[in-house]
């Protein structure tokens, strides 16, 4: 249970970091209209996941002073600042992808725990959040794919 509580905490924290990072990329690349708007929408998805989790997290007593610090080492740092230009955008999207992937596997771990505990509520939260994270990574894949050729081959140097 202690470990599950730690993972619940990790989910909450990493979703918050992901949301902040999506917003940072949105603001940093505000001139790229679709990136600006979609990143803000996707940040909102992470906010929703945290709202879904909140009542359950309370039940598990999300607690960081439990001394189980190992998963904390997985705690990815967010994107504090963005890079510029087309290659910069590509790299920022990749960073978001790494972060989203941490979130995705975190929900995977939680879903496994919830199944073991037969906690339907937590399982439902984990599944819905995982579906949301899937949308985030699928958009990142799509956008990276579209941005790569032009950025690699013909983007003017900054």
């Amino acid at each position, binding site marked *: 249970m202690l470990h599950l509580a730690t993972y619940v905490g990790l989910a909450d924290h990493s979703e918050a970091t992901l949301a902040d990072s999506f917003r940072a990329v949105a603001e940093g690349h505000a001139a*790229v*209209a*679709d990136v600006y*708007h*979609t990143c803000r*929408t*996707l940040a*909102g998805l992470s906010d929703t996941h945290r709202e879904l989790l909140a009542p359950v997290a309370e039940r598990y007593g999300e607690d960081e002073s439990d001394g189980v610090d190992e998963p904390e080492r997985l705690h990815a740092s967010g994107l504090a600042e963005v890079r510029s230009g*087309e290659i910069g955008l590509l790299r920022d999207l990749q960073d978001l992808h790494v972060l989203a992937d941490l979130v995705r596997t975190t929900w995977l771990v939680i879903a496994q725990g919830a199944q073991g505990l037969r906690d339907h509520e937590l399982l439902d939260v984990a599944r819905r959040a995982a579906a949301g994270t899937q*949308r*985030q*990574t*699928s*958009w*990142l*894949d*799509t956008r990276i*794919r*579209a941005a*790569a*050729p*032009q950025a690699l*081959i*013909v*983007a*003017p140097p900054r």
Partner: protein
Amino acid sequence: MADRTTDVWGERSPHGRGTPWSTRVDLHLHDGVGEADVDRWVPSACVLCSNGCGCDIAVKDGRMVGVRGRADDVVNRGRLGPKGLYASTPWASDRQRLTRPLVREGGRLVATDWDTALGRVVAESQRLLAENGPLTHGFYTSGQLFLEEYYTLGVIGKAGLGTPHMDGNTRLCTATAAAALKESFGADGQPGSYDDVEHCDALFSWGHNTAETQTVLWSRILDRTHGAAPPVLVCVDPRRTAVAAEAERTGGVHLAPQVGTNLALVNGITRELLEHGWIDEDWVAAHTLGLDDLREVVAPYTPEAVARTCGVAAADVERAAEIFGRSERVLSTVLQGFYQSHQATASAVGVNNLHLLRGMVGRPGGGILQMNGQPTAQNNRECGADGDLPGFRNWDNPAHVQQLADLWDVDPLTIPHWAPPTNAMQIFSYAEQGSIELLWISATNPAVSMPESARIRRILASDRCFVVVQDLFLTETAELADVVLPAAGWGEKTGAFTNADRTVHLSQQAVDPPGEARSDLDIFLTYARMMGFTDRSGRPLPSWSTPEEAFDAWRDASARRPVDYTRLTHERLRGADGLRWPVNAAAPDGTVRLYGDGVFPTATDVCETYGHDLLTGGAVTEQEHRALAPAGRAFLKGAAFTPPHEEPSAEYPLLFTTGRTVHHFHTRTKTARSRRLQDAAPDAWVELSATDAEGLGIAEGDLVRVESPRGAIEVRARIGSVREGAVFAPFHYGTWDLDGVAPGEGHRQANELTMTVWDPVSKQPCFKTAACRVVPLGRS
């Protein structure tokens, strides 16, 4: 004949459900020309809206002098609307026609010959190819060319150069129609037919002001609503249009949702259908996928919740849903009110969902018409000079790309398919950033028609990008070009095109183009020859040189795809009164409706796309698609409503929306050269609700300044036709006909205010989600 600028739809010929629409032949000849004076009548179809009405061009002394509707044509039964009648021919002999190529010398455009002009284009093109490869080239074309020209341009761009940066202004008009059809049914292709007007008992116009955008279709609808057993109309539009008034008169509803909230409304109607069990359970089970997900997505959209979000009455939502749910044959038409607005694809897909839930696809009267804004826009989608591959092929399916590589005899890696084809907005962004260095624009006027037009003009005027413009006149865009190529227009060249309900016509050359103007096909082919494009066997690419040969090549490309033209030839189309594709061995006389058998082109190996997340545009992968095993079943797809991109604030308290007026088309390049149309609608205006106008102290006819964070216009106010909180302006008015006024300085161009933002799936720009404020400038 009455003046059709005021009597827009002509006289009524009411008839009952299921009976044929009557014939009425409309005719207009230039002043001083009588019917007896006409030397010959040349079969064609009108290109001034997506109806594509069949017509004959009157020719006298080698000039086009008028038009006459074709009595037996399946689209119009002889009728023509004001634009078709008055604007089809006067532009052709206008004194301002471009007759010689122009090149920029010392900052000014000067006349030259074709060798010099195209020589410059070719030199620049070759230099860029050698230095940085094909990703330096972008093509922005039209919804106004012929099938043969789009296909040829597509082959040149995709197999000759190998650039993914090709799109058309179809992106501004019809991209969402295509995207919605692909998401729901697996491939593009209009399921319904205009014939459904004769059979329906309910007709829903979703963001579609048919009365002004497709006048002949509207007279067809009026002939039903004034006859026995008329259909009930439902209109979704923030303006009180003629369609809205007719909806109320027929006992239907006018829903005027706040700008940008269409999806919440459609979700609400979907939820009502599910709540009341107004769905065809067996058909849905057999022919669709995704019901449970859709049910979950729309669950929160109770009539009360919709009322709060959209600013409409809950009872009206219930009433509209009941009409949809209980009518026997519902026809839906969808246009820019949905396509150019927030969450465009999700909203248009929502309409498809409603039809699928009721099993109402491909039946007489039970039709879906995801419209086009332009004629021949459909051909751009079919032939792949926009962000599609020819023949509705899937860029993400290697087998489809290989088919094209075989057809063109090129290395499949030449054909850009490693990412989605670049959309128009992105093409301009690349030009802005400097990575597209040659931009070739044909038959369109982005300096006026694209969002945030000041930005577009900056890009076009910049030294970083070599701009080629090919058009009939020196448009606002052409003025900013490095090379201007004079093109032949409608009636001055031969080619086929498809209207919004899959009807194919052949438009035949009636007269010679003026001066040295050449057809777009000739221009593209000359460029390809000068560039020396060849296939792997060393033959010239493209291998054809006439419109008929281009058509034949396209026919081969269409074989075994949903858009199958295999039994169509120029010969067969000459003088024919409209055939609807597919026209093949199974349907030698064409196909009135698609999907009557409930089988959709969704199989993984067949489909044009694996689909997208409607909220973000994230692509579904091939593996995910295969796992769903759609195998001919249509997709029910939903998305949650999110607020529009720019919400009203204290500074900009109103929502700005743009649209058309019945008298003009596009940026008035042709229509303003018709004296009648120009006199009927000489200048721009803005529409305000009575409440907003009163609050601001504005009276009808006052001069006002409308400002958004991006720009401003100064025009006269009209009061009363839009809902509170919304401001409407027509988008047609640029500066070319204002003396001594530079592009962008006319203060009447609606797109100075609109935003650079687009739908995540269709990539269609949102022309209808900008915040604005209105400042009175004084009495007239």
